[in-house]
């Protein structure tokens, strides 16, 4: 067995990227993800790669575009406001079919917001990482071990489907330490050659072009439709979710990342009170794991989505449930962390057949077990 080490989530993301063959990192510091860039600054040169602190997030994402176009495994990382800045470059990468791994260690927003943990960028990640008809694959780790494990998956899927992949973490996961068994390093020379890359070839083939500009409407439609067919395959084949006590669950919680950890504790407490609660934890947010939601529909009497936001993923849960059961919401935002007891009160309400959208300052919520 691999010996476990104690690491911050941010450091685990960085080390796992190095082990997945990432040799280019471009970033710009921002709390709460800075340890990731600091780790890369120290380790990347020793690994024979390039670490560069860019002059801005926009510069960093365009450097990522360049390295990816040349066929490299490349990563950038930031936190919420910084990821907004990267939006333009992410859209260009989607349009140019360029893979890369983009880390968002979320903090509270909008605007400069705060620096405490948040999940308020769900919409940005899953709906509009940039302008245009496009998506990025979005992974949502909930342990430091998963921070390490999902990096390799992110690089693999990015290369397979030629799409950017985002890892949507949060300040809690980035800052906390847990034991982690690091994945074995891969030999990056063993990776399949990217035939589309704009690298040197000694005149052996016609030159490749990486571009997102199509001035003829029909050509643009053709590229977008072809890419959407890849998206359809991704939705079919790449959904990931973990379930906890869902077999007989009448109240099914849906939560990801840090909120899933808190919800899991609340579900265990609800079970002690005799409430049949369970948890679906999406590991991919896009594609959203609708198939897993489908498996619990026959038994579930109600759903409860828990997020560190005012309610974003709850829309995807409602789309998946499609009116067959009530879907309620509970959340805190701005960096406030819900307690398991607060979530337990929400579970009790859902178990009694109530449907609600509970956000902070609903006094009726704080009257319970808190």
């Amino acid at each position, binding site marked *: 067995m691999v010996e476990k080490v*104690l690491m911050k989530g941010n450091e685990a993301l960085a080390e796992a990227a190095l082990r997945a063959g990432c040799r280019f990192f471009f970033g710009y510091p921002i709390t709460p993800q800075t340890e990731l860039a600091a780790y890369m600054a120290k380790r990347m040169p020793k690994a024979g790669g390039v670490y560069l602190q860019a002059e801005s997030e926009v510069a960093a994402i365009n450097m990522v575009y360049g390295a990816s176009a040349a066929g490299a495994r490349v990563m950038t990382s930031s936190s919420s406001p910084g990821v907004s800045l990267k939006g333009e470059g992410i859209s260009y990468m989607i349009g140019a079919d360029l893979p890369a791994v983009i880390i968002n260690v979320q903090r509270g927003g909008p605007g400069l917001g705060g*620096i405490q943990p948040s999940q308020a960028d769900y919409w940005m990640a899953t709906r509009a990482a940039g302008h245009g008809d496009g998506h990025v694959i979005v992974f949502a780790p909930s342990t430091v071990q998963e921070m390490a494990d999902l990096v390799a998956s992110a690089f693999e899927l990015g290369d397979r489907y030629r799409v950017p992949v985002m890892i949507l973490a949060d300040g809690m996961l980035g*800052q*906390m*330490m*847990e034991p982690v068994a690091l994945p074995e390093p891969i030999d990056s020379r063993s990776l399949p050659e990217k035939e589309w890359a704009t690298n040197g070839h000694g005149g052996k083939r016609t030159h490749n072009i990486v571009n997102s500009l199509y001035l003829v409407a029909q050509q643009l439609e053709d590229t977008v439709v072809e890419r959407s067919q890849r998206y359809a395959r991704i939705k079919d084949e790449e959904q990931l979710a973990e379930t906890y006590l869902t077999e007989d669950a009448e109240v099914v919680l849906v939560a990801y990342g*840090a909120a899933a*950890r808190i919800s899991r504790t609340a579900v265990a407490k609800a079970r002690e009170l005799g409430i049949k609660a369970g948890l679906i934890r999406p590991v991919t947010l896009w594609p959203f794991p609708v198939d897993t939601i489908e498996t619990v529909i026959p038994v579930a009497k109600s759903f409860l989505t828990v997020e560190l936001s005012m309610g974003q993923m709850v829309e995807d849960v409602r789309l998946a449930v499609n009116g067959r059961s009530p879907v309620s919401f509970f959340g805190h935002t701005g960096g406030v962390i819900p*307690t398991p007891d607060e979530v337990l009160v929400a579970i009790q309400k859902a178990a009694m057949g109530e449907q609600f959208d509970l956000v902070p300052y609903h006094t009726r919520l704080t009257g319970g077990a808190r």
Partner: protein
Amino acid sequence: MAEHAKMPLNIMLAGFGGQGILFAGKLIAYAGMIDGHEISWLPSYGPEMRGGTANCSVCLSDEAIGSPLVTEPDVLIAMNLPSYERFIDSVKPGGVVIVDETMVGACTMRPDIEYHPVPATEIAENSGLKGLANVLLVGKMLAVTGFSSEKTLHAAIEKSVSAKHLDLIDLNRKAIALGAGIPDSDACTA
């Protein structure tokens, strides 16, 4: 408290930035990991750390850890008065509170907790262990709760002290032993 701590054990450590709160938490976390428990370590981060208070949540459990944020600690280690005041009311009934009496200088009115004041900073300074009051308090926590063993903590120290400061390993070990042997002061006994 019992000879062997019951799991889960949720610990809050708090004090001024620079007192080694995060390091003390890391020692406990590493010891928990070596003992085969599930563990998590979560620091406070942000503006409150600049010249203000720092705190750190450590969870030891035999099951998967949910929220790593400790809101109702089983054990509180407080190294200054603001931290003591901020967290004393959150300690679970029956919980353990260990304070650096040199820095806190307060006595709890709560009858439902185990209160262990020790003048850790003063003892550390008088024993050639300046700056290791934090580790002394981890030693005290070991003696009071039995959450791990001195042997495990020695291994945890080896993992936590950076390679550049190997000379500190012995001092940290001494601080654990010294802390484990300090009796409660009588400052808070009537």
